[in-house]
């Protein structure tokens, strides 16, 4: 589906980013996996889909350098996926200004900077007749709150608004902008969350907690990174050429329902 396309995925060595890189490669794209290290949050040697580019999304200089590499080697960029992101488990009262600035720097400013410096390359792709596409990472937490994740929720709401704004501004240039809003996706980040403050009040092993998490979903399952990659792949492809400015919730139906009381 993406034969001949050039894609850059930030957070490309994380749980979801890696699955996206692998899928893009499978679909025939040239893939740049931008991340802090070549293995990211995965174990070393867990896989190396796509060409690794060292890029810290909080560094404008590193983003410029990464785009120059893409420009020099591929001459254009068809697809930018802003998958880099972190979470922060605190209420605002216990969030330091440094922590607040850091999560915004990665989740929001990182999305802004990567898109800003990718635009000239995306325009080259769209001028060549391809539909260029940016895919940001929002979250269902941008719509409703999880307790103790205040700054994270705020960053995702910002990404949602930025997504619509960029779609309006750059649609006329042939650049589509969408956001994916995942729910519970089984990644190292989610498992870390359930090993920490997010674990159930009843205690229990990680496996017990994950079983209960699945039970709350209408699909009775958590998502996998591959589920997210499926939607990203579609949004990046020409099949989605009329899709722009939208927030695509991918959560197994979780947020279609009211909280279920225990009877």
């Amino acid at each position, binding site marked *: 589906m993406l034969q001949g396309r050039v894609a850059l995925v930030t957070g490309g060595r994380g749980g979801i980013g890696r699955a996206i890189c692998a899928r893009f490669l499978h679909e025939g794209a040239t893939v740049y996996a931008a991340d802090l290290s070549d293995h990211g949050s995965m174990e070393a040697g867990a896989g190396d889909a796509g060409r690794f580019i060292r890029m810290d999304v909080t560094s404008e200089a590193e983003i410029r350098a990464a785009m120059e590499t893409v420009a020099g080697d591929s001459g254009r960029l068809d697809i930018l996926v802003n998958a880099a992101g972190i979470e922060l488990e605190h209420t605002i009262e216990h969030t330091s200004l440094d922590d607040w600035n850091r999560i915004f720097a990665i989740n929001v400013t990182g999305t802004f900077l990567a898109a800003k410096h990718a635009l000239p390359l995306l325009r080259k792709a769209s001028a060549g007749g391809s539909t260029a596409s940016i895919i940001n990472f929002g979250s269902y937490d941008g719509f409703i709150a*999880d307790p103790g994740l205040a700054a994270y929720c705020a960053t995702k709401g910002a990404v949602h608004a930025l997504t619509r704004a960029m779609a309006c501004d750059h649609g006329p240039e042939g650049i589509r902008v969408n956001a994916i809003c995942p729910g519970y996706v089984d990644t190292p980040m989610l498992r870390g969350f359930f090993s920490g403050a997010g674990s159930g009040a*009843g205690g229990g092993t990680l496996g017990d907690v994950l079983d*209960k998490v699945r039970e*709350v979903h209408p699909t009775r399952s958590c998502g996998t990174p591959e589920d997210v990659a499926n939607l990203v792949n579609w949004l990046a492809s020409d099949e989605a050429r009329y899709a722009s400015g939208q927030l695509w919730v991918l959560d197994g139906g*979780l947020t*279609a329902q009211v*909280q279920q009381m*225990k009877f």
Partner: protein
Amino acid sequence: MTALAGKAAIVTGGGRGIGRAVTEALRAAGADLTICGRGARPEDLPAEILWVQGDVSRADDAARICAEARAEFGPVSILVNNAGIQIEKTVTETTDDDWDRLIGANCRGVFNMCRAFIPQVPETGGSIVNLGSVSGEVADPSMAIYNASKGFVHALTRSIAVDHGPRIRCNAVRPGWIMTDMAEAGFALAHDPERARADAIARHPAGRLGAPQDVAGAILWLVSDAAGFVTGQSFTIDGGLTSASPLQPRLF
């Protein structure tokens, strides 16, 4: 309070539950009240409130309710469409009779009342408040056509605001868990009623369940001149329930 002095209001299903709290709030604000229901006049209803026995799912009854209110109090400028029923079934369990009863009351009833009410509203303007539900936006399980009927109410609210402004303002409220006799009966059926109640409360950022007066307070504001620039909106009144994720690991 005299915010609604000299204004006539109709509250459908105003005899009990949320409707009764709305009736009392509007009356305390000085409005002349007409309320209706399918049964006989509630014995504890104050004498100055007009009771019309009628079924809002029937167009003739809806027209008669409006006509009797107008004959008693003059032009009616406030309508609160509160009457509604719940049926706890999935789509495949729902019978034709269930559909006729629920859609009749919750959808056709609201439509019938609005159609009868709007033409007689005085030039000075009027206000409609419909009772939607958080279930019209996110699903309660095994409440399929109830959830759908409230989605209808939210959409009809916007259409009436668009089509019949500026003379008519039309808004909806979307209650969450409001403790009425119907909800109390639900807790009584739980395996452990006290534990069920504690769990339900823990899911509400407000730290309690709703009371009919919580909904009545919002409706009183919406029909008053203080909300004169508010139309076409649906306001969630749920103690924060639907602002939180449906998945709460701390309550596992």
